[in-house]
């Protein structure tokens, strides 16, 4: 069996499963957020009754992160709906925006978009927060009401996005009906060259197989190059599996995985035993694609979909209006560090917005030094508008007052994951997807640029 088949067989209490089979699977973690949580709660109450209890309050993780720093009242109300449900159900893992468990959340625009405006438990973008807080464990089944839930496959979990109705079913029963997907194997060999990042690898693969090349399927990553990819790299790759249509994307676990997971669980009191899964030698794959990491170049996905692949060096005549670094794909500490290494001591030419994914990342950017200066200060001094308010921000447009939102037709280069029409706000805005290196180089140049021309020692 493949990694995904073996994992689902175990979760279904079966010796064997085959692709195409539908199985009823035990869920280890259900995650929901402010955009889909209120609807999920609504379906849960409608279907199980007003006084129903969730199947296990310790396995439900609720992370408001999408529409937080906005004066949009319905969005603020949605965070309050989550808080009330958490109180009623005794849910332990709720990363609220405010500290008062009986309070209401209101964003105060008079304090501006840059200064921190959240309490001590707020955790930022759900997929990164899940990992940071020790909720992603090898061998587990993690489902969430967000399509990029597949990110947790970086930790050897079966992780997939589901809708409100499915999530309500999980809330009430702890189970989900899943069709076992066929598996596509990706062999990542060798090592990435200078100026190349995991984002380029996944944009390369999506360009190769197409925006629906993995629809209904599992993407399984292996090969001798995986050990050279750190946890953040693996998260970036798994994160964008859904941009090829995949049901889940999954890595084998190694010493890096368990060290990361064990440390996070210990730090946040989320420890529980887990058992990693590896594929059988005789596993049957639908296809196998070998990727020589050394051959991957700085890559850009041009609008209007993530599979329109081009080499950054071939796009230097594309003039840009804006650059954006953030999101669950490109808003991690390592992403900002890469960005800083390019813009250090230089000035961006176009409006550039920086939104770290989580408060822990904000803190680490202020602490970690590059040539004696904090990463945060390097970006700010280079002219990047850095906000201390982590979250999804303009990655998906959001309410009109969202930080970094594209409110008029313009060209933006971004470390995010989607570039469909209207994704970052204005329907005629154009979004170019690229790595933090490429976005940094392009911000300096004012047009799409190959970061290899901007590397400094």
């Amino acid at each position, binding site marked *: 069996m493949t990694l995904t088949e073996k994992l689902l067989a175990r979760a279904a209490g079966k010796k064997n499963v085959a692709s195409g089979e*539908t199985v009823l699977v035990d869920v280890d973690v259900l995650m929901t957020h402010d*955009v*889909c949580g209120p609807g999920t709660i609504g379906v849960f109450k*409608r279907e199980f009754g007003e006084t129903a209890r969730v199947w296990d309050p310790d396995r439900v993780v609720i992370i408001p992160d999408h529409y937080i720093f906005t004066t949009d009242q319905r969005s603020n109300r949605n965070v309050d709906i989550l808080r009330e449900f958490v109180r009623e159900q005794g849910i332990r893992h709720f990363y609220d925006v405010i500290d008062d468990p009986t309070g209401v959340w209101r964003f105060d625009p008079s304090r501006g978009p840059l200064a921190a405006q959240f309490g001590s438990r707020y955790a930022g973008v759900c997929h990164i927060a899940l990992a940071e807080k020790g909720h992603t464990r090898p061998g587990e089944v993690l489902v969430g009401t967000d399509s990029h839930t597949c990110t947790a496959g970086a930790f050897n979990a079966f992780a997939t996005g589901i809708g409100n*109705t499915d999530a309500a079913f999980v809330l009430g*029963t702890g189970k989900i009906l899943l069709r076992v997907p066929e598996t596509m194997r990706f062999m990542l060999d060798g090592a990435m060259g200078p100026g190349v990042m995991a984002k380029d690898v996944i944009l390369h693969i999506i360009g190769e197989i197409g925006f629906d090349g993995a629809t209904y399927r599992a993407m399984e990553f292996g090969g001798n190059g995986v050990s050279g990819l750190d946890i953040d790299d693996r998260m970036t790759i798994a994160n964008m599996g859904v941009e090829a249509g995949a049901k889940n994307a999954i890595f084998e676990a190694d010493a890096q995985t368990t060290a990361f997971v064990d440390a996070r669980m210990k730090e946040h009191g989320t420890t529980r035993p887990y058992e990693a899964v590896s594929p059988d030698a005789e596993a049957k794959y639908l296809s196998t694609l070998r990727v020589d990491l050394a051959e991957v170049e700085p890559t850009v996905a041009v609008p209007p979909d993530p599979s329109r692949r081009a080499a950054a060096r071939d796009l230097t005549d594309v003039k840009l209006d804006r650059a954006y670094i953030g999101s669950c794909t490109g808003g991690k500490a390592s992403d900002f560090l890469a960005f800083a290494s390019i813009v250090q001591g230089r000035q961006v030419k176009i409006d550039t917005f920086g939104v770290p994914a989580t408060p822990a990342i904000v803190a680490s950017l202020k602490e970690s030094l590059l040539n004696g200066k904090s990463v945060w200060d390097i970006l700010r001094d280079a002219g990047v508008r850095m906000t201390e308010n982590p979250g999804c921000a303009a990655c998906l447009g959001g309410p009109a007052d969202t930080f970094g939102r594209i409110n008029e037709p313009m060209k933006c280069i971004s470390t995010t994951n989607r570039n469909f029409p209207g994704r970052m706000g204005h329907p005629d805005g154009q979004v170019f997807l690229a790595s933090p290196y490429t976005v940094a180089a392009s911000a300096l140049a004012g047009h799409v640029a190959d970061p290899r021309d901007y590397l400094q020692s």
Partner: protein
Amino acid sequence: MGRAIIGGKAYVVGDNIDTDQIIPAQYLSLVPTIREEYERLGSYALSGLPVERYPQRLTEAGRVPCPYRVIIAGRNFGCGSSREHAPIALGAAGIRVVIAESFARIFFRNCLATGELYPIQSSYRLNDGFETGDVVEVDLRSTTLRGANSSCGYPLTPLGEAEKVVAAGGLFHYARRMGLVRERSEAS
């Protein structure tokens, strides 16, 4: 739901219609289980489609139900986010069936789970052969699509078990029938 033949005007779109075009992100703060907000979602269905390419809107001035019952699309319909707001907005606008060359997985699953729409695949490209406003008929029993003034039917891919889920009215009705969850009266 559960009728064997669904007829009415078709609304025709191209490839890669993602969830932001089906229901733009600024409307996601609407909660589908709140009745008035459900209807408002319907009024914004497909409002993210670019106006130059789609001058004819699905819901003129946000009026629901819209004049269309069937959507005919190309590849990868519903790609993008997991938002259930997408099939719900279409259902709330009065759409009963989406026919596409292929569907994104989560959208397909959400159609079944909510029971809002029948997502039906066609093995060849139908969106080039029809125009918005054409009157069509979808026969769920024989899974064919027929134009009003044409005698030939286009065979569609049968939904199989999935049809029962939509016909039952969605995942929970189906799960009760299968004994996976208790009847609502004993639930609380």
